[in-house]
């Protein structure tokens, strides 16, 4: 450290000819030796963190996926692509992607609701801020807390059952988590409740960036609310809708928190990530689990790529 400062100081005190071939002395006046290096020093901190906590672990995971490591052993036996072959040839591993369809369906509902609320609340509505708060609130609650709340909500004789009874829907009562035909719908519903606030805020922000004169002009031309939505808002926030779709697809493939805490993947609610975690920590097949994680990463990347091809990212021009 001291060395660096000394160099810097000596560089400053000895202008000009001391360093042959170095450019004009005026450059030295602006900061000397540190001028070139400083930005990289600043950049180094985030880059080191990024590499250390993102790329290095991912590279490690690629390496683990080629071994039969159990997570503890001192030696990691190289097995080539065996783990990938297992991932693609074992029906029980790929079958769990079926569960993701429930969450994908849920996220479509979630986006529709979010878009609806964002549109309604972007016009002048009574208690606007209050409703915004209410809709965004669930997103701020810790996922574990939400899962616990909903376990009580869904349990027999729980909140949902009493509500249904109150409103004469007692006939609909069933085991919301116990019935294998219903469980994934219940869990996807929980997920919608939790994440709708995020979509809502994204949409609302985008809608509010649309200049107000456009609405005024449309109103003068006699456009109703639906027409305003159809021809001003929807095209205006298209990139955000596209982004939300990518997030929805990758999110439904990687569902983890809510089903894991609420059911532990029991009763047919096992998702791909739960399966991966169990493979790594219950069956101690870290190698195979890493391969599953790599495959999931690949699938998400491919989905994103397809989505970008189908819905290209074009500049929005409202004028």
């Amino acid at each position, binding site marked *: 450290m001291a060395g660096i400062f000394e160099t810097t100081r000596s560089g400053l005190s000895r202008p000009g000819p001391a360093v042959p071939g170095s450019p004009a002395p005026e450059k030295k006046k602006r900061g000397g030796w540190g001028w070139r290096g400083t930005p990289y020093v600043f950049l180094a901190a985030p880059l080191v963190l990024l590499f250390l906590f993102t790329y290095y672990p991912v590279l490690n995971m690629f390496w683990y996926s080629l071994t039969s490591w*159990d*997570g*503890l*052993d*001192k030696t990691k036996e190289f097995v080539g692509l065996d783990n990938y072959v297992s991932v693609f040839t074992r029906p029980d591993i790929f079958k769990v992607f079926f569960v993701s369809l429930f969450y994908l369906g849920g996220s479509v509902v979630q986006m529709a609701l979010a878009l609806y609320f964002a549109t309604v609340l972007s016009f002048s509505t009574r208690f606007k801020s209050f409703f915004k708060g209410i809709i965004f609130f669930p997103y701020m609650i810790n996922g*574990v807390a939400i899962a616990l709340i909903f*376990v009580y909500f*869904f*349990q*027999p004789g*729980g909140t949902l059952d009493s509500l249904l009874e109150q409103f004469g829907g007692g006939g609909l009562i069933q*085991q919301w*988590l*116990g*019935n*294998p035909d219903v*469980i994934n719908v219940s869990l996807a519903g929980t997920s919608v409740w939790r994440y709708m606030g995020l979509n809502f805020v994204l949409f609302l922000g985008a809608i509010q960036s649309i200049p107000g004169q456009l609405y005024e002009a449309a109103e003068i031309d006699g456009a109703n609310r639906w027409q305003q939505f159809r021809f001003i808002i929807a095209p205006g926030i298209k990139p955000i809708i596209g982004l939300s779709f990518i997030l929805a697809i990758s999110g439904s493939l990687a569902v*983890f*928190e809510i089903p*894991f*805490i609420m*059911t*532990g993947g*029991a*009763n*047919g609610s096992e998702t791909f990530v739960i399966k991966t*975690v*169990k*493979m790594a*920590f*219950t*069956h*101690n*097949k870290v190698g195979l689990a890493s391969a599953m994680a790599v495959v999931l990463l690949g699938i998400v990347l491919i989905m994103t790529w397809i989505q970008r091809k189908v819905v290209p990212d074009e500049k929005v021009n409202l004028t």
Partner: protein
Amino acid sequence: MFRPARRTRLLTVAAVASLISLTTACAGGGDATPADTASSPGGSAAAAAPSGDITVLTWRTDLVTDGTFDKYKAAFEAKYPEVKVSFEGITDYEGEVKTRMNTTDYGDVLAIVNTITPAQMPDFFEPLGDATEMQKTYRFLTPKIFEGKVYGIPVVGNTQGIVYNKKVWAAAGITAVPTTSEEFLKDLKAIKDKDSSVVPLYTNYKDGWPLTQWESHRGEISADPEFASKLGQDDAPWAAGTDHFVIDSLLYDAVNQKLTEADPTTTNWEESKNLIATGKVSAMTLGSWAIAQMQKAATDAGNPATDIGYMPFPHQTDGKFYATVGGDYAQAINVNSKHKEAARAWIDWFNTESGFADAQGGLSPLIDSKAPSTLADFETLGVQYVLQTPAPAGKESLVNDIDKQAEIGLFAPEYRQRLVDSARGASSETKQQIFDDLNAKWAAARATVAAG
């Protein structure tokens, strides 16, 4: 991301006596002398006074926070003034310690994680002494022996059985402890007929790990101390009449005859203690470590602790009940520790002088100790204890390896959750289909392990 997973697993682990088999030692000749000297209770004066700072990793975070360990620390440091002990309570013990064991920094004294295979123990832990010698003092050592060396000493021993509410059983007119599965189911039915609001048997399906307690009953049906080793030679562990068949059938039938909670997916472990204490649940299958907790729940609820009874698995061989005994978490010394003698002194002191096992209502790991008062019911019934003998040399990891290869998870909740799902009609599989599938997986995995 994995935190919730580990929390669940921690509970599993804290509860389940590790039945993982034994391991080998290739190292450690140099430590034989201090180990031998110190292994006799109270014989520590002979050894040179151990010194240094040691860190003890523990899964009992509750005892760290409530000050129990501070008392142990004071007593230990009074005897060994040169040693400073500090504790590190880890909530997600199994997950966190397993990860830390990939470094060299995992405390001086720690409990051996359940996921380790016996053959891996010498890589991570210091051998504590020769098995034959140490078995004169300690019991329940077998799963922690590898190639004749002991790597860990359990802090407490557990036996296995069914916790039940005596008042509820008596109210249903049941006077004798059931001796067969049929009788047990009949009793559960009588309880339900008497009061339909009582759940006769609570599975704790949602938390999952209590379901793994059923696995601990293996070896009781055949009353065979070799059972665990024989599992590695068996191609059909779920064939009719086997231990797994009898145990899993009882669970299946109880669920199938609607003698368990209506919606298993919303069970709650903490709540279940209160339910059994207040008689809303009549029975749960749990290790003996649970008795003290249930008794406490009973007194907390204003009922006498004697409401809580403990019965062995409903099966008799030659007119006698048999119950598995085994060690809970076993304390071991980090092979990278700088103060191995101090660590060793702590382990010996903890097992012989701390009174930990008694305080927990468990069986002491010392051979010449009395059964705890919590197991008075077992004494009355004349229950015979079955202690699994070590697997033959070279086969210590076999059962673990097959289980891992087959992805069944004998001590994981998944396969029993699958049984419960099938029994309550939530899946289209029949019991026989599940058993056939498990047999097929086991046989295939056994072939793979034998070939590899």
